[in-house]
């Protein structure tokens, strides 16, 4: 079971070697981030940098805090009453917990794709148009909005499939299409960072590979952080991988390094399938 998997990963690393031209600009950084749910400390002081045009994958066993940490980057933990976040998270050097920074503005800059596809129960068009309209990105101009809808759907690789039925309900699409619709919806507000919380966990392998290709394409324009349970996926799509365990970031490094030469024994145990 282990051997062929690792082989497949090896191959994908080689493919990627050519593409991965990592820029060194830090887009977001987390410093000593702790998250409490009531009195329980779920994350024990995490430090991490997200670089521009890079995909970072968060892996780790269930309940290790990777999704919680991901949600810190756009302050989605604010919506949970009992959750409390301490530490510093910077976006382009600015603290996102700054009183002067509106959380609405932050979320326009840092978009999110959720585990379960969650299109609004509205038409495909309305799903995409909602964000731009909300933030006033278009001056009530139908053709501008049409253009945003079209480009977003094109970037998400969904345009060809839905262009003739933009008025059809978004909830009527297949699971994979719905998730791409959600990605299109996220990029329609032109964010700088996209957070993806296990975006493929509810999808079949074909839909998953389409999304993975999409992520690869999108990283040219966005900074992407993705939580995944699927280690091959992490290997395939990410430039860097962070391994979380029991609320700690055990190790973060180039994906290739993590999978071939992990520094920590816990990482090794996890990626070789000994636990998790």
């Amino acid at each position: 079971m282990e051997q062929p998997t690792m082989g497949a990963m090896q191959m994908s690393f080689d493919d990627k070697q050519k593409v991965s031209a990592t820029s060194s600009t830090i887009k977001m950084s987390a410093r000593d981030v702790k998250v409490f749910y009531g009195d329980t400390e779920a994350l024990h002081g995490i430090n991490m940098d997200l670089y521009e045009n890079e995909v970072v994958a968060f892996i780790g066993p269930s309940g290790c805090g990777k999704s919680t940490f991901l949600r810190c980057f756009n302050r989605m933990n604010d919506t949970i009453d009992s959750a409390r976040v301490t530490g510093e998270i910077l976006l382009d050097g600015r603290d996102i917990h700054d009183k002067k920074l509106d959380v609405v503005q932050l979320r326009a800059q840092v978009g999110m794709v959720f585990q379960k596809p969650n299109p609004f129960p509205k038409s495909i068009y309305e799903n995409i148009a909602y964000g731009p309209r909300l933030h006033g990105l278009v001056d009530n101009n139908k053709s501008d909005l049409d253009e945003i809808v079209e480009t977003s759907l094109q970037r998400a690789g969904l345009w060809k499939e839905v262009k003739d039925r933009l008025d059809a309900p978004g909830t009527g699409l297949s699971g994979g299409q719905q998730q791409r619709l959600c990605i299109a919806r996220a990029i329609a507000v032109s964010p700088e960072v996209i957070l993806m919380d296990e975006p493929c966990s509810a999808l079949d392998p074909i839909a998953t590979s389409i999304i993975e290709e999409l992520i690869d394409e999108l990283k040219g324009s966005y900074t992407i952080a993705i939580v995944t349970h699927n280690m091959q996926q992490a290997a395939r799509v990410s430039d860097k991988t962070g391994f979380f365990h029991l609320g700690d970031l055990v190790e973060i490094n180039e994906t290739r390094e993590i999978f071939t030469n992990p520094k920590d024994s816990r990482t090794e145990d996890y990626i070789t399938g000994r636990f998790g």
Partner: protein
Amino acid sequence: MNTETVNLPDQTDLAKKRDLMQQRVTKSLKRRHSQEQRFRMMGVAAVVAALAFVALLFITILSKGVPAFWQAHITLDVHFDEQLIKIDEKPVRMESESEAEFNQRFLAWQTQLGFINFNRIILNAIAKEIPEAADHPRDAMQLVTSGERFALRDMVRDDPSIIGTTQRLTMLADANIDVWVKGNVDRDLPTSQQQISTLTQEWADELVDRGVIENSFSTSLFMNPDSRSSLASAGLAGAFMGSLMMMLIVMFLAVPIGVASAIYLEEFAPQNKLTDLIEVNINNLAAVPSIVFGLLGASVFILWFKLPLSAPIVGGLVLTLMTLPTVIIATRSTLKAIPPSIRSAALGLGASKVQSVLHHVLPLAIPGILTGAILGIAQALGEAAPLLLIGMSSFVASVPATPFEQSTALPVQIFLWQGNELRNFFEARTSAAIVVLLALMISLNAVAIWLRKHFETRW
């Protein structure tokens, strides 16, 4: 090798054990099936029993109530005798006159009209059909309900030119005639126990034979307010209007307040001891007997706020208080059922909390909210107990024009009629009023169902 030989007897043992297990399973299967069967039968029996009771209820009410929509009418040639109707010309407003002056003149004319003996005109009309009636005015006047003389007066008031003419008019027969004609009274009872004299009984039968008295559809039940002097023309108009006003008040107060508080409690309020306490109390309020709300209304709205007694405004406010918990609970459970992923999706795109609720959660919740609201309103519509305590059980013989005027309500009217001393007539009338109330409720529920379907099929 060694183990295999040892295992052999074990395997036959195992097969035996399996057989035994299978037998046991088969046995228990039989028991389980019969248990299931019994359970289903009980369920079906319960449903059938419930339906039978509903059917029985409807059959009794309809069979009693529907005949009340048909009433005995008497058709007579009424001569508006100019010898009897001696009045001045109907005043017309002159240009030199102020409105008050004209009103005074008109009032004086109406007083003059009020003194005219319209009973005499009716009696003359009856005498045309039955000549000996002229000698027995008391018996003759038992044929036509007393309210008709006012109807004749109003005809003259509206159009004095009919004076001197003869009109063929269909008038409501007296309630006792209606009862007699329909056979709702034991004809063998001695005269002393009959409501109408023997002479009137004979005349009534004769007029029925000649087709002068006919049982025909009557709008009086819908068009007239309650009446005690002219029972045959007692109607639901006043109660209906009162109920309608109260429903409007409930709709415009309970629904917005209830929905707003539910949204606040469900979507915005922090989860703490205080909101827990509020939630528990709202649930308790929904279980408070409605008569307690009546007491509250009497002491707060009438004694403290000095609002008028027996007025739909007070009734509406009391019913609003009673309906609020229902609306809040229904709305909250609807909001709870909206998947949180929709809220996350909106928040993740940068919508504010209010925007995520208004743009996404609320539209999805509308069918449920509407259903809850209309069920609450229907409940309020059928409520009589709290209204008794704020004076709405008094006899009101007019249709209220504003919510501050005295009025009664449909369920209270049913209660009043149910206690009327002329049972033979009002038993049917009460059932007819119940039919009207039920029809109103069924249409409200139908609207609720239609609204839910309408908003649901949008997505």
